[in-house]
């Protein structure tokens, strides 16, 4: 797969580069002071989507596999986490009219997130082992179709609440100590989750395992000829990506106390592709930056009031919120035509640094 990514300057891959270290320190210090002057709920939304995009990037940026169905893991993990935190009781139908019932009480947030993540990992294993049977463009179509199938299941399954979603999910008390109804406690919980997962992804990318993934991206037949069982590597990367997406989805459900069909529908799969593409496929910081830009744009346009323009006698009433899909589509077109490396990728390429 010839995905255009940054070209790496010659340096030992296991060595942390100074540019990455500086960017990381800047990012973390910004995130620590940011809640003082930016609305923390908005920041938490950005962090959840940034983690989602980073997890997605693990697949497209480092293995060259374009999944168009990541909403499946994001949405279902958020449903499961929301259900576990609010209701707890699990009922699984195994034959018409017969149910396996596990009578759980409503779970604390850490277990709810763990549960959502586990389900995302399981779905990742199933969807991944199906999707890697086809290459290239078919892979994208298979993942999209599987996600759409699971969207219809989410629409019909009784526990998801259909069009209403699961509302009023309690945030609960983390580890029995941290009360998450306090906004700052919630914020720093999400912050820690994000940073830990970000570092984990970084570790994966530069591990020997990650090097094999990149070899598959560049030339799969060659990786096979070198004796690597590429199918296993692809599946492992898929499951890792789905699992980390699950962390993002579950966390989002707890933060916003809501799981809804929006998170599991196909436009969400497209959105995460857009975030990653805009920031830079196969860059460490790109997806997080892309997610911040897209979420900021959405929030800005949704909250902006109606604009009325008078041009040459024509009156043009604009409701900016309605133009979000059009703008997103335009960003796709511009990115693909003009800067395929994405913002961070272009910067890294210009200064010949790793980011």
């Amino acid at each position, binding site marked *: *797969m*010839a*995905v*255009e990514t940054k070209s790496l300057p010659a340096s030992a891959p296991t060595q942390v580069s100074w540019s990455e270290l500086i960017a990381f320190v800047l990012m973390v210090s910004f995130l620590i002071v940011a809640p003082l002057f930016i609305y923390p709920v908005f920041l938490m939304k950005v962090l959840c989507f940034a983690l989602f995009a980073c997890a997605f990037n693990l697949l*497209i940026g480092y293995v*060259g596999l*374009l999944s*168009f169905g990541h909403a499946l893991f994001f949405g279902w993990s958020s449903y499961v986490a929301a259900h576990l935190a609010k209701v707890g009781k699990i009922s699984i139908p195994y034959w018409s009219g017969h149910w396996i019932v596990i009578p759980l009480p409503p779970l604390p947030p850490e277990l709810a997130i763990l549960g959502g993540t586990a389900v995302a990992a399981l779905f990742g294993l199933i969807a991944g082992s*199906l999707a890697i*049977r*086809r*290459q*290239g*463009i*078919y892979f*994208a*179509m*298979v993942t*999209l*179709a*599987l996600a*759409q*199938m699971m969207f*219809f*299941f989410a629409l*019909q399954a009784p526990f998801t609440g259909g069009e209403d979603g699961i509302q009023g999910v309690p945030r609960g008390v983390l580890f029995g100590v941290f009360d998450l109804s306090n906004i700052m406690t919630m914020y720093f919980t999400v912050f820690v989750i994000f940073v830990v997962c970000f570092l984990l992804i970084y570790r994966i990318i530069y591990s020997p395992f990650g090097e094999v993934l990149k070899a598959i991206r560049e030339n799969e037949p060659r990786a096979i000829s070198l004796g690597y069982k590429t199918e296993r590597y692809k599946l492992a990367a898929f499951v890792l990506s789905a699992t980390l997406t699950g962390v993002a989805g579950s966390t989002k459900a707890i933060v916003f106390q809501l799981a809804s069909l929006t998170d599991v529908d*196909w436009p969400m799969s*497209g959105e995460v*592709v857009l975030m990653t*593409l805009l920031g830079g496929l196969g860059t460490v910081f790109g997806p997080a930056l892309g997610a911040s830009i897209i979420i900021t744009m959405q929030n800005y346009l949704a909250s902006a009031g109606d604009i009325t323009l008078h041009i040459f006698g024509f009156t043009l009433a604009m409701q900016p919120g*309605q*133009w*979000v*899909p*059009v703008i*997103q*589509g*335009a*960003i*796709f*077109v511009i*990115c*693909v*035509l003009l800067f*395929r490396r994405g913002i961070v990728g272009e910067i890294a390429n210009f200064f010949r640094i790793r980011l």
Partner: protein
Amino acid sequence: MIFDLLGVPPQALFGQLLLGLINGSFYALLSLGLAVIFGMLNIINFAHGAQYMLGAFCAYFLLQFAGINYWLALIIAPIVVGAFGIVLERLFLKHLYKLDHLYGLLLTFGIALILEGIFRRYFGSSGIPYSPPQLLTGGYNLGFMYLPKYRAWVVICSLTVCLLTWFMIEKTRLGAYLRAATENPTLVRAFGINVPRMITLTYGFGVGLAALAGVMAAPIYNVSPQMGASLIIVVFAVVVIGGMGSIMGAIVTGFSLGIIEGLTKVFFPQASNTVIFVIMVIVLLTRPAGLFGRTT
């Protein structure tokens, strides 16, 4: 009667079968267009659903603002939308042929978002009704079922278009050039054939097929901005099941999956939305290359 044994009245069974056949003809037309485009351009046209929607809207505009009836719209809309496709190809797609497949998918996805976003902005989410032409209103009572004329027309017309396309690609000289250029464009150019122009026209033709399906769909479903978005995902599954290697394969897969979906609506309605995806999973497990696909 055997149908009574199954506990389903024949009216309902044949009604759903017909609806399945109609859906199947749209699957066939769209997956045919996708396959033709993919063969020449190496691009999966994500905007195919949006272009199908454009076809329906074009027919609606022609009727509303120019008083042009269905029959003329059936010819004009595919030409207009096909021409729009040609503009897209010249402006955007032609820059992507040397790149990885996925960029074509992302670009056409962006185009689909733009088109559907604009139409949703101006026409909302609710559909606009479009009545079938005078000649095709009413229907025949066949004894075991009522056959609306328009639906019979859609099935016959799309089957004819599919078979004509197949004939053109597989049996004519132009089709031979097309197939040759799919295999080896450089060699075909060396014989003095203008391959870039062929690529452009092929895209226009594929887009035109989608628009034609859109015009035919307008009287059955309402004309709405989202009519293509969910359809294109099902068509992707159809393409995965059939494989894009064979034109006849796309036609057969499209129609048969439509029928299977119709039958599912009768016997197991909860699964009617998902049955095609389930079949896709089964095909991936048993014949990973697709029913008519070549192993790639």
